[in-house]
């Protein structure tokens, strides 16, 4: 792993940096923290602040162990109140029927499907970061993968809510699953809507397994720290002791008795890379299947072969934007997080956003080209109506947010300034929501102009969507409070001290021990 030249040069650079601190590294805490290096032969450090294993453990576990930051409780109360409103809206829908939404005769699918596709798309970043970047050995992913995977799971929970409730009679939702029943009726497996059930269900399960398996060693670390505190009798008072016991039991239960044995790590690493390999085609397939919901129909504007790749690119685009939307404030609010989530990490993510934004822009252009080139009058009309029809404003928002706004990342200042990245990611989130809205409202102008109708949401639509944001934030705040936010063992593994062969080559594995010996020993 260290036989490549760039690593060695970085190691030398870092070793040199200890003697002459900050001599050659420009350090500006706001923007460039020394990790933005234009020379491609130098690998920037992945973790800053001269950290050793112990300080990594202390910092990351500290976020979950110390009392909650001041902003946490207000944020939690607000987001759970918002999710409560969403829940009430869902209850109202179930009691009354889908008529409470703004659906009408040609537009039978409204915000529910828009929200579903938007949330599933957001959910793509987590598995992409954990799986695809893992396979490509992009080590900068270690500081954000846990965070992004958590976001994925919560986003898919929000996504799954909408198809669940938009079936109208939710007490029949079980008919989506192949369950033996007294009518001897089975699901129709030739329908993309059923493929969706399996794709999203598999995606949720595999993402959860991946997230959980990655977290087992870190939960064990938290368990051991809780146990140690109990043994040291650091806690005072019966309440604190009881809480300590609950922590030790809770983390211990989910750590499953993980003992950090190398025989265990061997199976663990194998399982992890296999899960990454399995999740890679999965993440690409899920949004393809979601796009089949539209593409397999015979409606002009939906029935196009470009949909699967275009949806996948859009999903990655929106997912990365959402990760950054959450990551940038967290990076400011949690002390020490900037050492792990470096400016380089943010810059890399901005570059992926620009790339996928360009792919999405290309897809928009190609749709129009094919609509014209294909010579189908219904299709070309559908696209003209999309761009300059009654929903021109949605198309304009979509196009400017998705295609134009990420282009600012061509400028170095833009992609290395966190507050600015944050604003752009908000635009991308909005733009991607409108992309789905534009696709769904294609329904409002169908084949017969006599049946065209404008679709507008009701307050129930709006509040249900806002409520889903509340559910997402509530779950995310709980995650930030109680679980290891960064992958502790993976972050340790990218520290220079983790290399058993010292900083020089890995040919023989001999004679490097004394050089490296001093480093793991602090603390």
């Amino acid at each position: 792993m260290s036989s490549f030249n760039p690593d060695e040069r970085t190691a030398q650079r870092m070793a040199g940096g200890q003697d002459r601190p900050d001599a050659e590294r420009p350090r500006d805490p706001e923007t460039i923290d020394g990790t933005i290096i234009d020379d491609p032969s130098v690998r920037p450090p992945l973790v800053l602040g001269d950290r050793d294993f112990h300080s990594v453990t202390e910092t990351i576990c500290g976020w979950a162990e110390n009392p909650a930051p001041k902003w946490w409780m207000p944020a939690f109360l607000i987001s759970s109140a918002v999710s409560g409103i969403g829940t009430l809206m869902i209850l109202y829908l179930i009691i009354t029927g889908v008529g409470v939404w703004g659906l009408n005769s040609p537009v039978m699918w409204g915000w529910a499907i828009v929200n579903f596709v938007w949330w599933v798309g957001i959910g793509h970043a987590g598995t992409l970061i954990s799986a695809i970047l893992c396979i490509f050995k992009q080590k900068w992913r270690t500081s954000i993968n846990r965070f992004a995977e958590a976001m994925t799971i919560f986003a898919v929970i929000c996504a799954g809510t909408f198809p669940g409730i938009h079936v109208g009679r939710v007490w029949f939702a079980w008919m989506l699953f192949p369950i033996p029943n007294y009518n001897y009726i089975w699901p129709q497996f030739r329908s993309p809507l059923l493929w969706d059930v399996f794709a999203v269900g598999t995606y949720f399960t595999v993402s959860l397994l991946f997230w959980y398996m990655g977290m087992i060693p870190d939960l064990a670390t938290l368990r051991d720290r809780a146990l140690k505190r109990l043994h040291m009798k650091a806690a005072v008072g019966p309440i604190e002791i009881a809480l300590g016991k609950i922590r030790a039991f809770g983390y211990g239960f989910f750590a499953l008795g993980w003992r950090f044995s190398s025989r265990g790590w061997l199976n663990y690493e194998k399982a992890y890379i296999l899960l990454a390999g399995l999740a890679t085609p999965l993440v690409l397939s899920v949004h393809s299947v979601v796009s089949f919901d539209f593409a397999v129909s015979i409606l002009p504007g939906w029935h196009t072969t470009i949909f699967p790749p275009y949806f996948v690119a859009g999903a990655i685009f929106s997912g990365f934007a959402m990760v950054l939307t959450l990551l940038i404030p967290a990076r400011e609010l949690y002390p020490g997080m900037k050492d792990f989530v470096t400016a380089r990490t943010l810059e890399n993510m901005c570059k992926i956003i620009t790339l996928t934004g360009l792919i999405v822009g290309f897809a928009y252009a190609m749709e129009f080209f094919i609509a014209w080139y294909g010579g189908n009058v219904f299709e070309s009309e559908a696209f003209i109506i999309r761009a300059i029809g009654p929903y021109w404003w949605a198309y304009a928002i979509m196009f400017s947010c998705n295609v134009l706004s990420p282009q600012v990342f061509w400028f170095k200042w833009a992609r290395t300034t966190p507050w600015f990245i944050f604003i752009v990611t908000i635009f991308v989130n909005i733009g991607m929501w409108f992309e789905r809205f534009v696709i769904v409202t294609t329904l409002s102008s169908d084949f017969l102009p006599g049946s065209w109708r404008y679709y507008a949401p009701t307050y129930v639509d709006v509040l249900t969507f806002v409520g889903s944001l509340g559910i997402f934030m509530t779950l995310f705040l709980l995650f930030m409070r109680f679980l290891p936010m960064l992958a502790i063992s993976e972050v340790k593994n990218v520290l220079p001290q983790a290399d058993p062969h010292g900083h020089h080559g890995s040919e023989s594995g001999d004679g490097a021990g004394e050089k490296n010996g001093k480093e793991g020993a602090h603390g």
Partner: protein
Amino acid sequence: MAEPRTDAPIWGMTAEYESPAAIYHAAERFRDAGYAKWDVYAPIPIHGIDQAMGLKPSKVGWFVAVGAIVGVSGGLLMQWFMNAFAYQINVAGKPLFAWEQFMPVTFELGILFSATMALLAMLTLNGLPRWNHPLFGHDRFLRVSDDRFMIVVESKDPKFDAEATRRLLEECGGTHIETVVEE
């Protein structure tokens, strides 16, 4: 049980090392000495430690392969049974079992079963979940999850000898050599 009971039988012997490099070389010594029931405990998966310990490649892949075969064939069989056999839906006279339409669900189920098997195989092969273990009673062991590296030799090992093992642990740089008792 922070205080070790003196009357309980010895479960194993532990020694601490300071760095991945130090424990890597110690592991090579134990491998060459022919120990079988021993392990290296480390907060990270040390790169190449399987060779230093002389471990065979992990068997997780075989379980995943089984999961993939079961998922794919079971998924296809289920769809054939439900749509082409038990509850036939005639859509415009199209064939009841056209395999193309059953591919997405077949694929997803293949992934679902393989991924589940990956986790289950990892847990089974590691003997997890197991919430109690003699090592959890050893206070120094709790630092392994933070920044310590530990070699543990079980007393069940045929080559285990309180004196000789202790000497070997010391020779390859181990500190805090302690015995762990049965729970």
